[in-house]
């Protein structure tokens, strides 16, 4: 099936203007990059709304947009669980309870927080794994984007890969974290405005929301589900068999809502870094909350078109089809681009493609800017060349190291993208493995923040143990119909999960549980080497309560948090 289609001059014009603005922002920030602090931490100067939009924009990468639209087609509105239960509560928790320690401790990264709270080895372990994970992730998304552009737009694979990488490199090299963050804000608006016509037109084609529901009712019934299975979230989660995602409510609640989501949103430095760049402790706390409000509406932008696509695929007269792989299965990741092709005329089509490019860039710049900070502070400065004490020379030196790390990170990402194109399975496997470090990390950071007795040895062992159990669980279980060992069962095909999603949830739950038990148990057996004074500002019970004084009630963090929770509750009830 030939999926390529042609763009016209106006589509290219829009893309070129976007590139110019992105590079221009990097250029404008160049003169502020005087030391490592400005380059790697944005000089801790961002207003809350900028940091907040960057916070969700960096997560709204190409893989997220492509993947969530695809999941919308596959699982229907249940995909919104990744937002309403799988993101918002964790973001609120981060804002209210964890941000004061990340920001107040003066740590420059999450690994550095681990160093201050625990010890060097815990930091080292986390820093190395994180650096590898981010670079790998950016390589994989680069590959996904380039292959999409090749298959659909007929662009040269190498050219689109190198061009997109070069633009990201140029603006992050010029303006560091500030440039990444400011561009993420710009990219956020492009993603929203560029994809809106698609939402509108795909729903219009089906006769609006109710029209879509009617079409879906037939399809869902034919597949053996309730008529509204594709447009509800919790209604059919009583048993795994009655909803398209194949998971029960407690799997969603504990696996996604607690372990995976808190592991991701509260400990992933890529995300937390945006909040740490805010200009004050109060702004840092508000960052995840300001992000949470648009975040909960993203499902309407990227999941709803996916659901519409699923209805369209099943109406013969519409002529909408997804490309299929060798096994004859539709490639769901192509949903968004096939919709763009179906509905958008020249002009807005260019805007839609630009939105996809923008999502790719916001994700990749996030990876690169988190990588260079962890590399410079947590690996290079800790193990290769410690601070000399000559402030001016140090500032200059680490700024250069940060810049070199940016180039290095992009080069390794490109290499990872090519590896992914040659050994796709190995990269999938590595990504699965790395995704296993978040759950134990959350256990360790959470215990560290809220229980002063937690010791360094215990944390380190807990981290490793959680990771090992996750590996073991993945090696012993497999999702139904798995055709490669990448999906699990590579030690022994012990237990079969109905779907991959369920396996992921349970891997995370086991990893988190083990990590918590081991850390608590060993903390009781080992001596706390840090004095109460050293732990001040790092542990809840030893830190003076942070008070927001002099703010009117509606400007307080807690008000914002309650608004976010209230809105997400309404959405959950409306789409129950």
């Amino acid at each position, binding site marked *: 099936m030939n999926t390529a289609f042609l763009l016209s001059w106006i589509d290219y014009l829009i893309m070129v*203007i976007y590139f110019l603005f992105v590079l221009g922002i990097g250029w404008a920030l160049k003169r502020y990059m005087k030391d490592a602090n400005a380059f790697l931490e944005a000089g801790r100067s*961002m207003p809350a709304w900028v940091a907040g939009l960057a916070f969700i924009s960096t997560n709204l990468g190409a893989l997220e947009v492509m993947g969530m639209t695809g999941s919308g087609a596959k699982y229907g509105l249940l995909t919104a669980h990744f937002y309403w239960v799988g993101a918002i509560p964790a973001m609120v928790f981060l804002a209210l309870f964890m941000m004061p320690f990340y920001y107040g401790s003066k740590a420059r990264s999450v690994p550095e927080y681990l160093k201050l709270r625990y010890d060097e080895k815990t930091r080292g372990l986390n820093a190395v794994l994180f650096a590898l994970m981010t670079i790998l992730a950016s390589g994989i998304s680069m590959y996904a984007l380039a292959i999409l552009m090749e298959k659909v737009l007929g662009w040269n694979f190498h050219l689109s890969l190198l061009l997109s990488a070069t633009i990201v490199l140029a603006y992050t090299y010029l303006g560091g974290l500030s440039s990444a963050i400011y561009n993420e804000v710009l990219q956020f608006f492009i993603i929203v405005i560029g994809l809106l016509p698609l939402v509108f037109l795909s729903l219009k084609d089906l006769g609006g929301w109710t029209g879509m529901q009617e079409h879906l009712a037939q399809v869902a019934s034919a597949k053996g589900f309730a008529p509204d299975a594709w447009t509800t979230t919790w209604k059919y989660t009583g048993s795994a068999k009655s909803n398209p995602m194949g998971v029960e409510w407690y799997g969603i609640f504990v696996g996604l809502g607690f372990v995976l989501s808190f592991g991701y949103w509260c400990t992933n430095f890529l995300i937390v870094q945006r909040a740490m760049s805010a200009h004050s402790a109060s702004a840092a706390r508000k960052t995840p909350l300001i992000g949470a409000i648009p975040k909960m509406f993203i499902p309407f932008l990227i999941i709803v078109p996916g659901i519409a696509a699923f209805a369209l695929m099943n109406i013969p007269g519409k002529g909408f089809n997804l490309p299929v792989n060798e096994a004859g299965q539709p490639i769901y990741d192509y949903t968004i681009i096939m919709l763009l092709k179906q509905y958008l005329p*020249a*002009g807005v089509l260019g805007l839609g493609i630009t939105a996809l490019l923008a999502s790719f860039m916001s994700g990749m710049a996030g990876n690169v800017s988190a990588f260079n900070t962890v590399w410079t502070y947590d690996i290079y400065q800790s193990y290769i060349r410690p601070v000399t004490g000559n402030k001016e020379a140090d500032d200059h030196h680490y700024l250069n190291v940060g810049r070199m790390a940016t180039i290095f990170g992009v080069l390794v990402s490109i290499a990872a993208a090519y590896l992914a194109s040659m050994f796709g399975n190995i990269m999938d496997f590595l990504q699965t493995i790395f995704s296993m470090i978040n759950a134990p990390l959350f256990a360790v950071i959470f215990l560290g923040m809220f229980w002063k007795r937690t010791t360094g040895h215990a944390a380190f062992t807990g981290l490793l143990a959680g990771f090992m159990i996750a590996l073991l669980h993945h090696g012993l279980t497999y999702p139904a119909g798995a055709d490669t060992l990448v999906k699990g069962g590579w030690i022994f095909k012990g237990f079969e999960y109905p779907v991959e999603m369920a396996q992921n949830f349970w891997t995370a739950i086991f990893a988190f549980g083990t990590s918590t038990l081991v850390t608590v148990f060993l903390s009781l057996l080992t001596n706390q080497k840090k004095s109460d004074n050293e732990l001040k500002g790092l542990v809840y019970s030893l830190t003076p309560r942070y008070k927001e004084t002099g703010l009117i009630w509606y400007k307080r963090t807690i008000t914002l948090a309650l608004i976010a929770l209230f809105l997400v509750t309404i959405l959950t009830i409306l789409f129950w």
Partner: protein
Amino acid sequence: MGIDIRLPIGLMFSIFGIILTLYGLITRNDISVYSRSFGINVNLWSGMTMLIFGGIMLVFVFRARKVKSK
């Protein structure tokens, strides 16, 4: 860092808005362009939305500058 991100956002969306609005006006009678979108001139609508959004951003920038210069 001393840049106001609303300025580039406002400028970029204003430019996009002008381009798409003009393109929408030029192609308004061209049925082949809008057959995909059921005859709706999405360029015009989208262009005007972006013009308004870009304009609002620019108003914010100029107001902030006024406050600063006082």
